[in-house]
């Protein structure tokens, strides 16, 4: 297996981008990554696109071909593949690109992720997001996507004494981080009261416990590590990649406060990298809801089960903490254009490890991690990155 490096990253602004179409977003992120990698279009050998539901959001399937076409790389007839794993689509696309390079099949691979969510109504958007859960046995029985996470939160509070305030602290921290990120959807700080007084979505989760609907795209360019220096002085190596699955329905998990898929993917990624949790300086985790970040930092092994809320409250996941979580603002503040999210996480970690994260730079960051989730944890993908 060849060692793989990221040699270029690109990301659009995230938010309600009324004048941007899906293809404009995808091409925008792609062009900035390709220019960052200092490669030319004809060097690209393969394209992977993470996208959850263009068919329902913009009534367009076949989006990998669309992106290849409008990027101007289709004339070379390169393989272009769409990857779908709900919220983990971007992370899994990255893993597909990683495997294509690691295997020796391709040298230069572009991995993009994109979602255009605001061309449908809020209700329609919620319905599309809920299709990541078990449509026939959860959603159609009345469960919404926030509702399923509320079930986790209710149980986490019951089993571990996690408090409503600790959930709020996740949102407060991620907004604080997002305020430092010029690409973030929400660039303003909030306090606990804002979260606790915001409208209820699914008790105990309020609107400020939920990531927004967003438009956006992100791209990374991969190549074999031994070629990386031809393109950049600051390559970042993908040292571990783990993917795992679990039951589609939340109700089939033995424990709804633990995402078994995150645990398995984490173990696989660390094993491949030969690293452990204490080596990680910065992490982008899948905080589509505040409870998700608490569960994530436990399942990733940063904190013991049940102590994620307390760790957040004590500031252990912010700057000067044990591991800085979601410097980008996370899904909560940076935004969550579903298919783009997993790739955007990689973009953030690469920026951190390159030392180009500006005001939100984690000092001397050397090892970073991304955790990207599909549905209520039916898919998890974890990547480990190291500064070269």
């Amino acid at each position, binding site marked *: 297996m060849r060692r793989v490096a990221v040699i270029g990253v690109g990301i659009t602004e995230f938010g309600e981008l009324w004048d941007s179409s899906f293809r404009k977003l995808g091409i925008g992120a792609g062009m900035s990554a390709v220019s960052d990698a200092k490669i030319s279009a004809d060097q690209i050998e393969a394209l992977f696109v993470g996208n959850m539901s263009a068919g329902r959001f913009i009534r367009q399937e076949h989006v990998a071909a669309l992106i290849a076409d409008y990027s101007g790389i289709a004339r070379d007839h390169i393989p272009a593949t769409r990857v779908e794993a709900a919220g983990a689509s971007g992370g899994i696309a990255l893993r597909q690109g990683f495997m294509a390079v690691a295997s020796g099949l391709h040298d230069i691979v572009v991995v993009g992720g994109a979602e255009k969510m605001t061309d449908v109504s809020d*209700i329609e958007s*919620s*319905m599309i997001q*809920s299709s990541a859960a078990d449509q*026939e*046995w*959860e*959603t*159609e*029985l*009345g*469960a*919404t996507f*926030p*509702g*399923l996470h*509320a*079930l*986790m*939160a*209710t*149980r986490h509070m*019951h089993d571990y004494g996690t408090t409503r305030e600790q959930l709020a602290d996740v949102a407060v921290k991620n907004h604080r981080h997002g305020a430092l990120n010029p690409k973030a959807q929400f660039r303003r700080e909030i306090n606990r009261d804002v979260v606790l007084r915001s*409208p*209820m*979505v*699914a*008790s*105990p*989760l309020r609107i400020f416990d939920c990531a927004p609907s967003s438009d956006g795209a992100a791209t990374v360019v991969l190549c074999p590590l031994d070629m990386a220096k031809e393109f950049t002085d600051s390559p970042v190596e993908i040292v571990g990649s783990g993917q795992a699955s679990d039951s589609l*329905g*939340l*109700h*089939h998990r033995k424990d*709804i406060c633990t995402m078994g898929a995150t645990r398995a993917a984490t173990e696989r990624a660390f094993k491949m990298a030969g690293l452990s949790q204490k080596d990680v300086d910065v992490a982008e985790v899948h905080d589509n809801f505040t409870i998700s970040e608490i569960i994530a930092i436990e399942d990733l092994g940063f904190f013991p089960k049940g102590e994620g809320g307390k760790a957040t409250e004590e500031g252990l996941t912010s700057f000067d903490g044990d591991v800085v979580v979601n410097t980008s603002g996370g899904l909560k503040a940076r935004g969550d254009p579903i298919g783009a999210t997993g790739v955007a996480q990689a973009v953030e970690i690469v920026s951190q490890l390159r030392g180009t994260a500006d005001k939100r730079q984690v000092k001397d960051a050397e090892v970073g991690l991304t955790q990207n989730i599909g549905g209520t944890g039916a898919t998890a993908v974890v990547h480990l990155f190291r500064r070269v």
Partner: protein
Amino acid sequence: MATAPRFWRENPSRYNMVGFKCNSCGKFYFPPRIICPLCHRKSVGKTEPVKMKGTGAIFSFTEIHEGMDEHNVQKPYIVAMVELDEGVKVTGQVIDCDVCDLSIGTRVRATLRKLSEEGSAGVIHYGYKFVPVRENGERPGDE
């Protein structure tokens, strides 16, 4: 939009909570599966449809304030994960009660209600929802 046959084929499970029992390991599953995820090929030919009693206890619950269109009239409405007495967990609405009547462990039983309808002219979908019960079968709050 859902179509009639897609719902119709699940009627036994939607109406009567017909699940699946693996006679290789003895475990119950709901909804029915094709094979037992524990016994794999060993379960082939050794599974049977089994009707859940429909009684159980709330494992977790939430009151939903932002829901789908079809639930507008009921908002806010309660959704729970229920651990059935067969040891299987299922998700469904809890009705005819207030969220303050409920806690983790509250006993419930399944009943049949309208789940959704395909507009005013389309097919109506029926399925299980849960109502709280006390041990004697009465509703909570009954004296």
